[in-house]
């Protein structure tokens, strides 16, 4: 009971902070919505409004090439009163989504999967944060709050991914796959989480089910495929044509909109000669997806960590990343608090990220408003930002591998090592 009260207080406080920011500073939501660090072409709330307007006037929302988000979001937002006149409903929806994500995160933390999976138990597993602290770290993370106030639709993807994982850790493979399909339907890239997620489901499946891994995978892949297909068909029924496929997933795949963001793609593709474009699109996507196989195989014993790593990698290398993806990675990372002491450069990494967080808006200002800088300023800082996260990822990976290695070689515990 007392735990529940604590949780209620936490959620209440988080909701209150967001509500205060929404209502106390009326200019803030629109200001943050316009920030390229928060809103990308495929998640922007402003673009959603445009799509909604067209949809409500019986024009295809994809006409005009502004709206690149899934059609079902339109149905969701038409159910709400107009966000310009009654913004409170939109605010409430976004706050609720954040709280749901936090709830799912608490479920993941409570399962203890991070410390001891089916195939591996960390010797440090007792030294972990409570699910309460992890949820608090997520809910009061400035990136999460800024994302919530900026209202990009990526929060729905975040929520769906966290639900997929929270269902997987309790072995509810079908629900998990359904949540994953939702995430994939909204943003496509979560489909790459399928391999580690299915392994997590397999490891955690109820004892009475004794099917082989292959048939398990096939069954669940069919479930994912089926649910995605039905979602797509629903979208087809709503919009009346299949053109949404190229306007949503096509945009993610082919990157026609080169609005700046915190990722690495936009600048690269601005500079590129058109003849190389397709080749490099292939290379970039291949690069992004190549991590899935490698990490899943190497860290077979800790699928949840593979998911965490992949979310971090997506936040750096996906075509339209935003700080919303970063906040999702930061939500998962504290689950591995027990290996933090094994990380070597946390201070440097967090300093780099902090520097980039401050310099990013400053350089964007110099480029866009003051006119005294140029695109290179902002791109340079997105490089630094990505470098910071890459270092953090590599360091976390090192820590987990070292943790595994110490189980094999207990005599090396506490020794200084260097990987050559």
């Amino acid at each position, binding site marked *: 009971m007392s735990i529940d009260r604590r949780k209620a207080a936490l959620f209440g406080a988080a909701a209150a902070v967001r509500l205060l920011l929404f209502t106390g500073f009326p200019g803030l939501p629109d200001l943050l919505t316009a920030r390229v660090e928060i809103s990308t072409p495929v998640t922007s709330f402003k673009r959603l409004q445009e799509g909604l307007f067209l949809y409500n006037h019986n024009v295809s929302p994809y006409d005009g090439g502004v709206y690149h988000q899934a059609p079902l979001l339109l149905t969701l937002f038409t159910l709400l009163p107009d966000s310009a006149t009654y913004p409170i409903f939109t605010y409430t929806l976004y706050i609720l989504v954040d709280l749901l994500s936090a709830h799912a995160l608490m479920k993941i933390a409570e399962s203890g999967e991070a410390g001891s999976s089916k195939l591996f138990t960390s010797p440090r597993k007792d*030294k*972990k*944060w409570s699910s309460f602290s992890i949820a608090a770290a997520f809910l009061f993370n400035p990136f999460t709050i800024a994302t919530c106030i900026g209202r990009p639709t990526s929060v729905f993807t975040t929520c769906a991914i966290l639900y997929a994982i929270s269902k997987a850790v309790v072995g509810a493979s079908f629900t998990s796959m359904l949540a994953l399909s939702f995430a994939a339907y909204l943003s496509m890239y979560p489909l790459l989480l399928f391999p580690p997620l299915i392994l997590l489901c397999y490891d955690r499946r109820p004892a009475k089910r004794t099917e082989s891994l292959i048939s398990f995978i096939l069954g669940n892949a069919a479930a994912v495929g089926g649910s995605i297909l039905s979602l797509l068909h629903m979208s087809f029924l709503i919009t009346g044509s299949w053109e949404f496929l190229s306007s949503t997933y096509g945009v993610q795949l082919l990157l026609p909109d080169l609005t700046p963001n915190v990722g690495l793609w936009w600048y690269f593709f601005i500079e590129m000669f058109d003849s190389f474009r397709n080749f490099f699109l292939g290379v970039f996507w291949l690069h992004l997806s190549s991590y899935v196989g490698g990490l899943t195989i190497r860290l077979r014993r800790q699928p949840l960590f593979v998911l965490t790593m992949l979310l971090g990698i997506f936040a750096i290398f996906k075509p339209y990343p935003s700080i919303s993806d970063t906040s999702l990675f930061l939500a998962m990372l504290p689950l591995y608090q027990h290996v933090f002491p094994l990380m070597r450069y946390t201070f440097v990494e967090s300093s780099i990220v902090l*520097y980039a967080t401050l310099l990013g808006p400053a350089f964007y200002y110099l480029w866009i408003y003051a006119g005294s800088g140029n695109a290179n300023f902002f791109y340079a800082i997105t490089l630094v930002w990505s470098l910071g996260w890459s270092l953090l990822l590599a360091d976390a990976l090192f820590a987990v591998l070292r943790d595994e290695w110490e189980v094999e070689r207990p005599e090396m515990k506490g020794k*200084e090592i*260097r990987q050559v």
Partner: protein
Amino acid sequence: MASLLSSGVLLRRNPHILKLPPYLSFLCVLIGVAWLLVLPLDNYSRNTYISENALLPGQVHTYFAGSDQNVFRGYKREIDALEDKPNIEVNDKLEEILKASGLKVARQSYEYKSAGQTYTGENIYAILHAPRGDATEAIVLVAAWKNMEGKLNRSGIPLILTLARYFKRWSLWSKDIIFLVTADSTAGPQAWVDAYHDTHQSPAIDSLPLKSGALQGAIVIDYPFDHRFHSLHIAYDGINGQLPNLDLLNTVVSIASGQMGIGVSLQQMWQHSDSYQDRLQTMLRGMMNQGLGHASGPHSSFIPYHVDAITLQPFGDGWQDEMAMGRVIESTFRSLNNLLEHLHQSFFFYLLMQANRFVSIGTYLPSAMLVAVNFTIMAIFLWVKSGYPQSTNSKTPSTVEAEEKTSQLNSSQKGNAKVITAEESSAVRERELLLPLAVVAGSQFLGVLPLYIFNHTPQNMLTPVFVSFAVANNALPYILSRTLTHLFNPTTQQYQLIKSFSLLLLGLFLSSLATLNFSLAFLVGLLATPLTYIYPTSSTSALSYVLKAVLALVLSVIAPTAVLVAASWSWGLSIEKVLTQAAYGWDVWGMNTQVVVWCVWWPAWIVGGVLLFGRPREETTKLNERGQESKAVI
């Protein structure tokens, strides 16, 4: 390879390396300051040059002379008669004159409220549509009715009217020309530019009934006397330390000194002998103006909108007449008229040390960065130090031992990964982060308080509020420190971490700021330098008390409030005047120097004070060897 890596491992434990950072950070500050001081030398600064070839300064013959002088005299008589008339009446007359020249005229009234005062006025402007243009671009010629000192722009207003009439006769303009007469030098231009870009606060500020294309540049005439002048003074600082493109300045300098033979001076250096001292003084005055981020003339309001602008102020007693001034403007406008695109070729970040000598950002930025790096070095050092075991002095390994250890490295091959391990285990102490984070975050949030107070207090209350704040401010660190000791009794490590985080943030803010407003970052960095060297001590010897007293004195001298008092005393202004001006800057210009002072500098200072009066608790040595289980950090 292996030995190289292992030496890296051992280097980290070298006790001599650990003693280095405080000296290193001090060295950074020294180099940073020295760097700035060598900039005026010939080897480090450059002669200015025109980057944008389209400008072609001084390549045209100027025809503003002869009969136009009679027109000027006529207008001047009209203006003299209007000297003490109210704004509206003045504008009625100006409208009549401008309409007689065949221009479209419009008016805009505005009202600003700041520190309990109301500032109202009405701007009047006329648009000359370019005979060869398509109204997509415009250049602005501005004259404020009253200049920054409140003096009537006695010759400037007649000159702008004469030029309006004169420019209208030419058919060569390819950009629209806007003639703007503002009621004052600070609020009027701001209201007009805001409204031109539709970012004004309606209904206090009217929208503009008449508009033209994108503004390409603005020239302000500030000519408040009616005798002949000697040389030209150019004011170029914008709000928040933003500067106009150097090409604009170069154009005017090359026209005035090259074509017209008029000397040019900057930063109120009425005499400039091209000596090191004069160059340095010009540069430092420029940095001061940039650091304060206030408006130095009506042109300042244009610069945030990426409209390059400068103010031309004739000064001294010489043989140049108002027609020469008019020709400078005519020639400048002919140059700007040539522009094919917005001024972008030349520098936006520069320090000028003379009208034709400058240093660019690449040369001067390292000095501010070095000052900021000093904080970061100490932050990293303290972080590392806070992780070291308590009783280091008992088992400090000597260098000889360290060398021996090189041979004790174990190298093991396992799969593809080759692993080298050192014999000695690396012990890292558990860091207790929660309290330090809370203290630093708390002091950051506290900064909003003075920011709000000083921007929202009415003018007549500013002095008493400031005095009581200054007194409270001096007592605050002591009180906070005592409260902290009483409630949490922090350990040495926690104090180290508090300092580490505070300095990290300071270094972070300052290096970001250095890219936006170099001078402010440098000045704040320099004033905050002593904070690097403040340690809490629990020693009770007489010496430590004396040291503490001296440090407390230093700390109260470098307090933002004390610096403010000293600065206003040296400028010969009252505190009330300075604070009113600051609040005015905040409300009207969107100046954000205050944010830096109260939300960057002041929190760091408070933390410095908390550290000085801190009494670290003797802690029981608690080691957390890597890999050893221990309780969670939070």
